[in-house]
């Protein structure tokens, strides 16, 4: 336990050191800079704060947003409008700040509701964020004298503090928000953010409320951007529609891309550098300057998708080898409060499917499937390729999939629920392909799986990962408990399968849907999985639905078998009944059958 706490304190020490260095630089800078540069930099510092939030959204969670300028503009206009039309003073300033943040948060929530829902395309979300500033500037333009329309508002009373005080205010704001962001992206929650970026679908099936998290992050970054906008307006004494325009929004994106998305510091330095350079160069070569930025931007996107930061970072590391504060060592602990298997009720079937159908256009993949999964039972689903087995799993675990019929989990209808809602009802689903979250470590993946139960700490990393006993069994049996810090991309196929199963178990389901969990595994590995599945039904009372081709394996572990053929249930019975059935034998072995027609 000793070096674990050391790792944690290292992380906080790095954050604290960075924060203090940043604050020192901010404190000293105004004494070294002339008035002009100080002036320029105060504004740029506010802009850089917004860029930092763009990097959180885009670099960490993968939301390509064109609309961050809208929130900046909302904050700025809150300042301009309050001071122009209502009053000036500390009370009014606070009211304006609160108004800006409040309106920004509400608009962000509404935008998030529009842009993020289960099944929304990233492209669609991006276009919504593009529409936001366009609509907002239109509103500002038509605001007449109230908003100052195209001319904006200016000359309202504000605090004519000494430039140094403004510099310190803006700089401290930037350093503190960045430190918080740095801790956030390196916390447990930060791992969840990366996981959403890498594989949103899979996150949803682990019960992580992806849309809600995205909306929350949108709101949080809107709050910071609004506050920055408020500061910008209060300092510069001007608000204009261009502060909310999508042109500024795309400029934020350009700075983020050039600096290096996902690096936090890269975009900030890019913002500071490019905006300051613009002040110099746009006067002497206004058109060429923009052309140059455009060309460099395209080149960076195509050739250097991670921006310049990794280059600079690499150089820095070569000259000055510092130990980076990596992920802390993590330990697995049994979940003493695990509810896995509790509440299993032999009387009430955990899974009930009635008249389920699924059509793609005119193509019918499932027709009128009715079946029941009982507690402490393992139900095998067999059938030739294309029989609709995987579609059946999909229809159980995502409410928007089926075309007709009813699915009940533990007595509750799934309705049109998104995967994470159905996970909450007690469904766990494993997938055929083993693409996990390639850049995350084994421990990170397990933490993700625990999000639904344990949540994720916002600014800190957990040390212990509490897992139910069977999940620990699998990890131990596959040797994964020794490789917690390895990236999953480097694991063997068998280990990936094991991890997949352990993750599903970590969500503590009562109905487990397994899609060929042993495909591509060696015989000893299959034995392990088979044993665990046996324990899960026997000792924990789980209802397991298993798709499997290997009939030997199915025979070993199943209680009952359902044979799917061309989207319908051909037969249901015990393994022996099914295996001895001439009908099934012929379908499965490829001999002729007229049963379907």
């Amino acid at each position, binding site marked *: 336990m000793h070096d674990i706490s050391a790792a944690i304190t290292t992380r906080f020490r790095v954050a604290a050191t960075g924060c203090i260095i940043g604050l020192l630089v901010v404190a000293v800078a105004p004494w070294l800079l002339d008035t002009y540069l100080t002036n320029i930099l105060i504004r740029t510092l506010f802009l850089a704060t917004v860029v930092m939030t763009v990097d959180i959204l885009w670099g960490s969670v*993968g939301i390509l947003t064109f609309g961050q300028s809208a929130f900046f503009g909302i904050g700025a206009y809150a300042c301009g409008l309050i001071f122009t039309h209502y009053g000036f003073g500390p009370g009014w300033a606070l009211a304006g700040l609160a108004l800006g943040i409040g309106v920004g948060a509400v608009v962000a929530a509404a935008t998030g509701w529009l842009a993020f829902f289960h099944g929304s395309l990233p492209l669609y979300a*991006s276009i919504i964020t593009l529409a936001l500033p*366009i609509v907002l500037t*239109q509103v500002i333009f038509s605001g007449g004298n109230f908003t100052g329309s195209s001319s904006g508002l200016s000359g309202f009373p504000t605090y004519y503090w000494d430039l140094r005080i403004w510099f310190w205010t803006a700089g401290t704001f930037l350093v503190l928000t960045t430190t918080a962001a740095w801790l956030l992206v390196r916390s447990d929650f930060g791992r969840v953010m990366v996981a959403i970026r890498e594989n949103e679908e899979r996150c949803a099936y682990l019960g992580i409320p992806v849309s809600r998290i995205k909306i929350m992050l949108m709101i949080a970054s809107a709050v910071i951007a609004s506050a920055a906008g408020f500061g910008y307006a209060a300092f510069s004494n001007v608000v204009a529609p261009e502060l909310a325009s999508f042109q500024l929004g*795309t400029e934020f994106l350009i700075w983020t891309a050039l600096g290096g998305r996902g690096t936090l510091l890269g975009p900030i330095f890019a913002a500071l550098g490019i905006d300051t350079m613009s002040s110099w160069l746009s006067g002497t070569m206004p*058109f060429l300057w923009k*052309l140059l930025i455009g060309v460099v*931007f395209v080149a960076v*996107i*195509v050739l250097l998708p991670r921006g310049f930061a990794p280059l600079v970072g690499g150089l820095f590391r070569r000259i000055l080898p510092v130990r980076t504060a990596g992920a802390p060592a993590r330990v697995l602990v049994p979940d003493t409060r695990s509810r896995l298997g509790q509440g299993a009720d032999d009387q009430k079937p955990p899974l009930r499917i009635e008249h389920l159908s699924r059509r793609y256009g005119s193509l019918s993949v499932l027709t009128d499937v009715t079946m029941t999964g009982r507690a402490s039972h393992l139900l095998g689903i067999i059938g030739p390729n294309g029989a609709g087995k995987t579609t059946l799993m999909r229809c159980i675990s995502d409410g928007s999939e089926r075309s007709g019929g009813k699915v009940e989990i533990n007595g509750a209808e799934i309705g049109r629920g998104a995967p994470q809602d159905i996970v909450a009802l007690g469904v766990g689903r494993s997938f055929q392909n083993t693409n996990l979250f390639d850049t995350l470590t084994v421990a990170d993946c397990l933490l993700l799986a625990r999000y639904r139960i344990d949540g994720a700490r916002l600014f800190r990393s957990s040390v212990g990962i509490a897992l139910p006993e069977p999940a620990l069994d699998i990890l131990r049996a596959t040797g994964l408990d020794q490789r917690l810090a390895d990236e999953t991309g480097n694991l063997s196929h068998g280990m990936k399968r094991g991890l997949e199963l352990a993750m599903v178990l970590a969500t503590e389901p009562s109905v487990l849907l397994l899609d060929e969990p042993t495909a591509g595994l060696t015989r000893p590995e299959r034995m392990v999985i088979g044993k665990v599945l046996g324990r899960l039904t026997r000792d924990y009372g789980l209802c397991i639905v298993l798709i499997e081709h290997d009939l030997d394996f199915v025979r070993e572990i199943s209680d009952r078998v359902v044979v799917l053929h061309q989207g319908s249930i051909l037969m249901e019975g015990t393994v022996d009944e099914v295996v001895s059935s001439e009908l099934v034998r012929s379908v499965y072995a490829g001999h002729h059958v007229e049963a379907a027609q």
Partner: protein
Amino acid sequence: MAILVLDILTTAAILFAVSAGLLIILGVMKLINFAHGAFLTVGGYMAYLNGAAGLSPWLSIPLAAGVGFLGGLVIERVIVRPLYDRPLDAILATWGLGIVIGQLITLGFGRGVQFAPNPISGTTELFGVDYSAYRLAVAVIAVLLVVALSALLKLTRFGLNARAVIMNERLARGLGIDSTRVRALTFGLGAALACAAGALITPLISVDPNMGLPWLVNSFMLVMVAGVSFPSLLVASLILGGAQVVVSTYANPILGGMTIVVAAALVLRISPKGFSRA
């Protein structure tokens, strides 16, 4: 009333013409071309150059299409192809490309407004009202465009290959279709359509380095709603364009300007597939 109907029809026709190039690129390549606005602008400048050279104003449309096609092929090769598996980056790169094209035009022609000659001027009497002859001509051209594009997709070999790639790229490749080439041609075609549309609308508006930009977002929204078929793009143009005209006429034009964006966003929120499955 006749005027309102004509306004709706011609507005829908213009919107369709302007969005068609975006749609075909989205359909085959699954990427939104943010340089679309810049392509429209290029088309406008082709019309201007065509006029300055003293050629027939009708020639500007094929001229723009030709330039767009060649430019599209080059852009696809250099910028778009490396980004096929990074769709969001492709958005950014094409956006950056739009900036570059805009700045090049500004450097070449200046920021001022240019003029292209009108192929048809004045009004025609239709349903008892005098109506802008060129708008009516655009409507006719848009209808021809729907027919031509549908025929291209339905009847020609290229169209068949493109549809095969849209439906199942893997299977198409297994049948010997070079999907890389199909994509390159599609991007060229999309760029050609965008440039031609720019030349087409030029007589109604003016030529300046930013002329394409205002059309960009409405086009995005229309193709997002329309999915990947030209007939449903026409339906989307009629419904949303009609809503824009009605709101502009009976409420006010500023709200009208936001109608398409807001309505499309709501349609997509409620039914993510838009009109394509309706």
